[in-house]
């Protein structure tokens, strides 16, 4: 199974070019979508999730033309949007059942069983009678993943699922994703590089609506081997270095500034060659 995105472009009414000729082939497994805020990740995901149309290009799930058969695509889809709300005063159980019906699980016995399992898996069973509106961020996010799993979807799209979760919860959440990723396509977007490094076989970096890098994380790291250098400098020298080198990132470290630069030269005087991380790949692509 493969999701093939070809030449996808989208310009919003206000003139923003959200997607610019996107080409991606997404196989089963976890697929990470990296990019800064406003890069077009959500636009891309909403397009895959049939919530909006592209101006140009095509989107195929194997043989299925997604843009022309939205209802068909929706049958195979599980979608957790970046932000979502719930109906007022409704319990998790009721809401999940409601979504199950809309998903097509009309057999009530099966549905009840499914809701029970989903709530158990996301460990919401204890609070299933409680108002979803009163859930904490993490619980609500787990509810979100529970609903995205209804009907064993083949394509699961999760948009920034770890934003707002504490580290422990984030770990567990990612584990859950990797657990289910064996048979299905999971596309998840994030701007946290570590998430991708830990879990994904495939990834893409998007910036300003364009794919700037794609492939296996390790391959991408390998490509950058021998090209990333590091140096600790005074803070006020940063501008100077930016003018003379390709500075991909800088961070404060013990009162000084540590910068990473990329260069094709074998040796860069005053710099220390380091083995690149995925973060370097990411920053290298979006500079």
């Amino acid at each position, binding site marked *: 199974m493969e999701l093939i995105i070809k030449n996808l472009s989208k310009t919003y009414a206000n003139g923003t070019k959200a997607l610019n000729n996107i080409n991606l082939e997404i196989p089963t497994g976890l697929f990470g979508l990296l990019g800064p805020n406003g890069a077009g990740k959500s636009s891309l995901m909403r397009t895959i999730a049939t919530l*909006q149309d592209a101006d140009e290009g095509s989107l195929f799930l194997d043989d299925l033309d997604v843009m022309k058969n939205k209802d068909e695509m929706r049958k195979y889809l599980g979608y957790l949007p970046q*932000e979502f709300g719930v109906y007022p005063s409704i319990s998790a159980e009721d809401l999940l059942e409601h979504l199950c019906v809309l*998903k097509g699980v009309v057999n009530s016995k099966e549905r009840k069983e499914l809701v029970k399992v989903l709530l158990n898996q996301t460990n919401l069973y204890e*609070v299933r009678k409680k108002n979803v509106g009163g859930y904490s961020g993490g619980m609500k996010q787990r509810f979100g993943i529970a609903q995205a799993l209804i009907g064993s979807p083949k394509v699961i799209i999760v948009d920034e699922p770890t934003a707002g979760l504490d580290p422990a919860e984030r770990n567990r959440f990612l584990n859950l994703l990797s*657990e*289910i990723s064996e048979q299905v396509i999971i596309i998840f977007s994030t701007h946290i590089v570590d998430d991708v490094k830990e879990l994904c076989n495939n990834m893409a970096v998007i910036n300003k609506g364009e794919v700037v890098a794609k492939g296996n994380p390790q391959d991408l790291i390998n490509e950058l081997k021998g090209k990333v250098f590091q140096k600790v400098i005074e803070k006020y020298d940063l501008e100077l270095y930016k003018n003379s080198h390709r500075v991909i990132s800088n961070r404060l470290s013990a009162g000084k500034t540590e910068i990473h630069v990329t260069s094709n030269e074998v040796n860069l005087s005053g710099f220390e060659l380091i083995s690149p991380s995925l973060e370097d790949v990411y920053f290298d692509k979006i500079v």
Partner: protein
Amino acid sequence: MMLKILFFELRYRLNRPATYIYFGILFFISFLFITTDIVQIGGSQGNVCRNSPFTINQAVLVLNIFAAMICSAIMGVPVYRDFEHRFHEILFSTPISKLQYLLGRFLGSYLITIVVMSGTLIGIMVGSAMPYLNPEQIVPFNFNFYWQPLINIILPNVLFMGAIFFIIGALTRNIFAIYVQGILFLVLYLISNTITDNLDNQLLASLLDPIGINASSEITKFWTPAQRNQLTVPLVGHLLYNRLLWISIGIIIFIVGYRLFSFSAQPLSFKKKKALVQQDQIQIQKLELPVTRLSFNFTSNLNQFLHIIRFEMKMIYRTPIFVIIILLAVFNVVINITENTEMYGISTFPTTVKILQEAADTFALFFIIIITFYTGELVWRERSNKINQISDALPVKNNTILFAKLFAMIAMVAFLNLIVILTCTCIQFLSGYHYYEWLTAFKYMYLADFPSYLFLIMFAFFIHAIVNNKFLGHAIVILTYIINIALDMNGFENKIWQLGSIPSFTLSDMNGFGHFLKAAFWFQLYWIIVGIFLLIIATLFWIRGTEFSLKSRIKLFKSRFNFKSKLTTASIMILAIFCGSYIYYNTNMLNLFLPKNERRAYMANFEKKYKQYEKILQPRVVDVNNEVDIFPREKRLIIRGKWWLKNIHNKGVDTLILNLSENFYTKNKHINFGILSKKIFANDTLGFYLYKLNKPLKPGDSLQFNFSYIIEYPEIENEFKQTSIVDNGTFFNSEVFPSFGYNSEMEISNNDDRKKENLPKRKLSYAISDSAKYNNTYISNDADWINFETIVSTVENQIAVAPGYLQKEWKQNGRRYFHYKMDAPILNFYAYLSADYQVKKDKWNDVNIEIYYQKGHEYNIDKMILAIKHSLAYYTKNFGPYQHKQARILEFPAYQSFAQAFPNTIPYSENIGFILNVNEPKAIDVSYYVTAHEIAHQWWAHQVIGCPVDGMTVFSETMSQYSALMVMKKQFGKAKMKKFLAYELDEYLSNRAREREKEQALLFNQNQPYLHYNKGSVVMYALQDLIGEEKVNAAAQNFIQKYRFKGPPYPNALDFYSFIKAETPDSLKHMVDDLFLRITLFNNTCKKATVTLNKEKKYVIDVELSIQKFYADSIGNEKTTNVNDWIDIGALDENDSLLFSQKVKITKNKMNYQFVMDHKPSKAGIDPLNQLIDKDGEDNLMKLEF
């Protein structure tokens, strides 16, 4: 600091377009109100100018109710806004105090609201200055006229409403609460109004109304047009208390709110929020989900459809506002029905048809609110709750969602209909009325009432799907209701243009649904088809996903508008056009359809063209012999007549002017005069014909007039006006028969309308000196006293009745025939009735009494018979013999609410008398009263009748009132009469204030009901009290004796008055003149009353009185005049029964008086029984302290 916040608020508001829009709305409405007739808000009429201070006051009050929504939109949000924009975090860290903050925000938005509300005043001000207005209808600009309502109404009202809205907004910080509180206020206000309307206590009613309408109208109720044009409403009395009360309440609310408001991020909540315990573990051993089948076939669609309906309904029922609105609606219905009175404080029995229709009408406003509001909520539910991205990505079809939501709304409205039915049943049960008609109730609610709501739902769905902005959507839906009204008033009167409009009809207990439901069906069908059409458009525009731009929506529409949906749309459209055309064919081709303007022109045309024939002498109808076949189901009459016409003039007659008023619906017409004649002119539209006789009819000669035609009415009408020929309860009068001469009844009577058509002003009746008019009675131009005979047939299960005595009854061809013949001469004025009647018979001396009534309506029949007997006894004794040997009362359906006296035959609406509940001991027995009045007409109108000059109804209507009063006085006693007369006086005083033309003295009244009935009662009662009942009766008897069945020429009011004056002693003549010849008013007050016991253990009472007397002119300018009258001074006991009364000649404006009495009094003062026309009868008596 507070000022800074205040200015911040002002600046913010002044930068918002909404502020200007609100101002503009109010400005525009009141501008239109002053300059056009499109907007009607407690408007001016007749002699009251368009911009009179009274009208301005009224307009400001009414707009204040609806401006509650605007007030809530401005005053509810300031604090919420700070929280929504997270500005509070910054704000609360500044050194500002809570008071400064709240007061600053409050005053800022208060000032803005005042400015916005002043839009009303400025709109009126600018409107009044428009040069194209008729200067007669405009009073010159006076600053006080605008200043006063601003001070009296706008400032206090905005303070009170604003305080509530502001505090609720600040405490809840919930946009939903802010969003509904305006509506809720409105609903609550309307309900409280129903309650206060029914309060007997004026003070309470005035105080409890926060807007001040009651208090204001208490002051202006009896103001005459002249006063309304000059005076501003003074801030005194109850109005002042009212204003002070609600200002204080506003301030208290603000203070309480200030106390409760906490300067923290948490809104006020009475529920303790329990934080859910974090359940952090996702324990995934192995994620194994059960195998579930997703199905996407018809059954699963249906399952989804039903599920969403249930889900949506649950969502609706869960909102507390829903329950509140329903409870309020039910409460409103209960109040309305239980407090509603038909006449003289009497209500009808709660029959299903009566209260159900009332309940449905009361509920209608709530239906509209609920439909408007919840349709928006439903369409927006997913997006409002931000769950749309999840739900829109689910594989459920658009149509499934849309139609399920639609049906959830429909199911809810159906449920509300059930609530209406249950409410009515409960009312019936609790009032001990156990005749439930479930079938009728369900049929009415679901077949008659429901379809228009069905359309409304579909329409609101359509708007919300298209507009894609919830608030704008609501605004457009509401605007449509207004546009509908405007359409109706501006030439688009056909219901097919007015969205969702279905002709309404009255349910009758006699005739049930009649043919009306069947006819309304076509309109229902039409609107449902149109609704389906709109729904299809809605599906094409239905938003799914996250794209809302116009471009993408049009793209979406194009992609969805495929061949299949094109075909569906087209075929639905064709169906709608077909159905609309069928309706149009019926309403405009088969019916005489005349929009208001055309009707005016049509009638003006008649007058302009044919007035020239008014003076052509016509023969008189002397002998009428009619054959009438009534076909109730077919709405058809077959009419054949053989009449004799006689030339009673001293000149020959050669031209006959023939009118057929129902000509549009007439066919198979045959007209033939016994001698050779030629039709020389015909206007078939107006039913106006001229015939030339080959040989003139010589004076004293007669000719035979033979005619036959068929009248048939179509069932489908734009408005159900044809209610005379119905399935059960047919009632029509002589108007369907031919008449002769120019018919001045066709002329436009409203002088404003006449002006628009360039016709000269027309008085309601001719001058009393116009002797040329003495030759006709005021009800007919072409006959005097006639002989009458008729054969009438109807369907087999009905009885048909016409004036006269039954000669023969037979059956033929499945129809029933009745032959009636009159033995005494009658006016050319008769009626035919046919219904499935029960008959109750009785006898008084040799007069047969018969009541024809609907089975089940036995309640008051015995009372009616008793009233007939008492009346016949009193009238024959005091006025002269009864000319007939029979008196009959016949019930007809509730389409009209009156009783009318024809010769020996009195048709009587079911609502009046038959289903009135007159059993309560305190009630005035209206069925007795009406019967006595109608029987009196057998003398007053059917023995003596006036000519069409001023005062024509004095010795028909006023004398019938007098006759009934005397019979009632004998039967019920004086205490009940006081109650009855109080109603009459109140009616007189409030109706004279609304007079459009000129108020006349009673003797010269121009057929104005409030004069000849209401003032007539008061005057005649005072007269018999002044000169004695037997003197009045002597005058009446002498008058009747002189003019009985005489004429032409016919007597006029002065002829009658001379008989009254003949019986009046000279010392009282000036007082009788005050009663009849002038508009005389008193304002009598008891200033002080004390009681002491004297040595003989008798009560000595001292009263200090103030007496004022006025003469008013025809538009209500009053002039004080000297008092020189005999007025009662007396005392009542605690049951308001008269204990003591003495007529005292009063000549001064102030006087003290002492009298002694045996029994212990409770109140004392002047005119204790309110027999004078007193502008304020409440202060005549003072309570005595012991």
